[in-house]
């Protein structure tokens, strides 16, 4: 990022290639809408590009990036908390399950239905978490970020992050307990 700050555009391409997918995946799990997650990711990278000249390496680049992403995702979620948006989200959920996620061996209709039902349960369980808990879980579980990094991204203490995670996982364990021991159909 320091090279990007100094005007090296190729370094920005490297940053983009390295962080694009993790960022979009995080945003997708936050907002559960692929087109929206890509739009938000575009905005994150544009903000990074616009503020490159004033970048100070006070935290790791990824932490800074996820801080911007979390802000944008939380704002989007707050703006979209109306019934119309929820309906749109539900439609997207239905259409967002591509066949390419399934294993190569052709599953039966029943297996596909079970698979989709399980995924929907996981999505729903994540979606009902309070926004900060959701962000903390996604960064901890899928981005493998450390507590200190999550704390910077969420602008709270490490202790608060641990507390958020404890409560979030507690809720998830309760909601998804019945899935324990059952694997996805292959």
């Amino acid at each position, binding site marked *: 990022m320091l090279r990007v700050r100094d005007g090296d555009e190729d370094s920005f391409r490297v940053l983009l290639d390295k962080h*694009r997918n993790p960022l979009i995946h995080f945003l997708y799990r936050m907002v559960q809408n692929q087109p929206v997650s890509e739009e938000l990711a575009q905005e994150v990278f544009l903000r990074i590009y616009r503020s490159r000249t004033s970048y100070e390496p006070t935290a790791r680049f990824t932490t800074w990036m996820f801080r911007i992403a979390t802000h944008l995702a939380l704002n989007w979620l707050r703006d979209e908390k109306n019934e119309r948006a929820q309906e749109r989200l539900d439609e997207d959920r239905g259409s967002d399950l591509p066949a390419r996620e399934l294993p190569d061996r052709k599953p039966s209709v029943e297996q596909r239905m079970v698979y989709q039902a399980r995924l929907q349960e996981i*999505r729903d369980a994540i979606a009902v978490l309070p926004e900060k808990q959701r962000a903390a879980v996604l960064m901890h579980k899928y981005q493998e970020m450390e507590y200190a990094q999550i704390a910077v991204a969420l602008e709270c203490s490490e202790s608060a992050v641990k507390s958020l995670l404890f409560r979030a996982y507690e809720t998830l364990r309760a909601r998804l307990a019945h899935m324990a021991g059952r694997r996805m159909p292959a």
Partner: protein
Amino acid sequence: MTQREMNCPLLAEDTADVLLDYSAGRLDKTRSVRLLRHMETCGACAAFLTEQTALWSALDEWEPEPVSMDFNRRLWQGIDRIAGAPWYRRLADALRVGAWKPAIPLTAAVLIVAAGFIMDHQGTVPFTTSAAGGNGVSVMEVDQVEQTLDDVQLLKQFDSIVTEAGGSTRM
């Protein structure tokens, strides 16, 4: 907590990270050994870990969506738009993304110094107001006028008392 013993991590929310880290495979070997030893006698922790590990595998099943092929192209179009924008637009964008934030402490420092200067010199500079037609009447002058009016009022009262006393003597 000694080398051999471990307080139950479930006693507080912010110590349960040991169990979370273990189920995520991120706990170092020393602490893993201590946790395993603790779980031999702590059913609550053992149950927690079983459930958390099951949850961890369930969450693994949620694969992300593939990214659109034209993501980079759209982004570079956006960057080109930024680069081609007029200077006032770029300035507004820079202010929006927080480039002005470093100026906050500097501005605060300037304001504090200015306030201190004003307070320090307030006693030596006579306070004037332009309310009276812009003539600049000082606070001291206002006090003197009030004092004079009080004196005149006092003299009037004294005079009327003396007049009443003189009239009653003549009667």
